[in-house]
């Protein structure tokens, strides 16, 4: 079985971003970047399927600037077999990303595509669903468990009220939630080995996809700041203040 995993390079989740001075974007200069945490979970899941003998070939794809090579090398060190970089500007719309991935899927015919549920920069939570729509394939978003049997994916999803389990005919698209697995760290020997694994580059033009967007960012501003309030000395003082000062309990 062949698995396609799509990984995005984003700001590291520990970094607190700042909006730039002219309120047009966030300031990403000299900021630590990493693989989107949900994409790490996606890579891990694919590698586990390979270790179980279910998958034989894992292709990782990343779309953005040349710096995506770092992200792809990390995925290769974690156990992916080969990588494809689609050389484009960073921050493309999810729809464009999905169209590019759909073209790759048409060429590669993967049996399973695993994406993160959400990028922690755009907070879009769209690409997997869009890819499934463009390919007219079944989807299971927010996965917390995945089993493959008899050409089907049995996926448990984290939904508002609890958990839901679906069965999808392969090929299918799955997006990862936090509880799907705990990603491993790449070992030094595997990091060295990853340098020799194949990494190919393509352009959106070669894939016949236009990267123009119908969305225009008018402004990016900092959120209203919340200032720290007061410290209380006891529960009695707290309850008193919640009653008489804040008026939120009676």
């Amino acid at each position: 079985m062949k698995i396609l995993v799509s990984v995005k390079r984003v700001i590291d989740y520990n970094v607190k971003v700042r909006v730039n001075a002219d309120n047009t974007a966030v300031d990403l200069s000299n900021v630590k970047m990493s693989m989107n945490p949900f994409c790490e979970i996606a890579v891990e899941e694919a590698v586990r399927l390979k270790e179980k003998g279910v998958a034989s070939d894992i292709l990782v794809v990343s779309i953005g600037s040349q710096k995506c090579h770092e992200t792809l090398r990390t995925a290769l060190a974690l156990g992916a077999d080969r990588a494809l970089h689609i050389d484009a500007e960073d921050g493309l719309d999810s729809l464009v990303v999905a169209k590019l991935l759909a073209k790759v899927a048409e060429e590669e015919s993967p049996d399973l595509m695993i994406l993160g549920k959400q990028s922690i920069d755009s907070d879009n939570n769209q690409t997997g669903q869009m890819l499934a729509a463009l390919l007219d394939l079944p989807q299971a978003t927010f996965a917390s468990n995945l089993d493959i049997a008899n050409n089907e994916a049995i996926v448990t999803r984290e939904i508002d009220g609890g958990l839901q389990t679906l069965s999808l005919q392969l090929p299918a698209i799955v997006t990862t939630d936090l509880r799907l697995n705990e990603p491993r760290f790449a070992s030094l020997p595997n990091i060295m080995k990853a340098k020799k694994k194949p990494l190919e580059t393509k352009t959106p033009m070669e894939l016949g996809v236009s990267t123009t967007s119908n969305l225009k960012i008018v402004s990016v501003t900092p959120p209203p700041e919340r200032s720290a309030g007061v410290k209380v000395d006891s529960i009695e003082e707290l309850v008193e203040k919640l009653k008489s000062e804040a008026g939120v309990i009676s």
Partner: protein
Amino acid sequence: MSILIIADHDNRELMPATLKAITAGAQLSGDIHILVAGSDCYNVAQQAACVKGVDKVLSAENAVYEHHLAENLAKLVVSISDNYSHILASSTSMGKNVLPRVAAVLDVAQLSDVTEIKSEDTFVRPIYAGNAIATVQSSDPIKVLTIRITSFPEASINADAVQIEVLSETIESHVSRFLNEELTKSDRPELTSAKVVISGGRGMGSGENFQLLQGIADKLGAAVGASRAAVDAGFALNDLQVGQTGKTVAPDLYIAVGISGAIQHLAGMKDSKVIVAINKDEDAPIFQVADYGLVEDLFVALPNLEKALE
């Protein structure tokens, strides 16, 4: 042109989240139509017909829509999308699952978690876990939006019933099947619409200790929430996770107990009206957003709080 809102429901009740999406939709110009797709859900269609601001209800009742499988529901929405300028759903797991699929087939972008409607084509939404607020203008022919439910009040359900139009076309995809669901049953108010929320973090130490929160929640009529660390440690169920990648809440009162206040947690609760933090570490970042902070061991503070509320 009209506005289409996809109702979220459990085939019995319309979700309050949808009432909030209707409030958002009412800020756009055009008639508001609500699509109620499900199985044996006529009751929901009737509720939707009585929501203030709604002009028409479209009812699609068939077993294939029972669990809101994205493949079927998205195709149904696309099949009726012709006369709409905007298609909206609330940012519930249903909305997030289905709407991007609709947008992609229509070849338009989708805007997630809209917190403000500036005009027919310009919308505000948080990015980077709410550390930046983007204003985005769309030139797509149809705007597809999910609505952040904490940013809009609920539309009221007391209007005269409007027309319910029955859609007879059924769209069934055979590539995905529902197997089962484990839904949490709780007598408490639903997390995202509760007026008071009390959440526990890793500091709670165990699932049993969450009982300490339950007693207080009973007294306050509160919903119980959790941090990711508490969910990952198995202290609380996944559907209680508050944060960037869990649920967004904005109650009148949010009480964070044994939660450090990571950016990802703050993203889900910092729009609460009043925030209380109980933490034994006086340097915990949660105190930077708390209106009232108590530096104390939670195992001392919680029993005292329960008593003080008696």
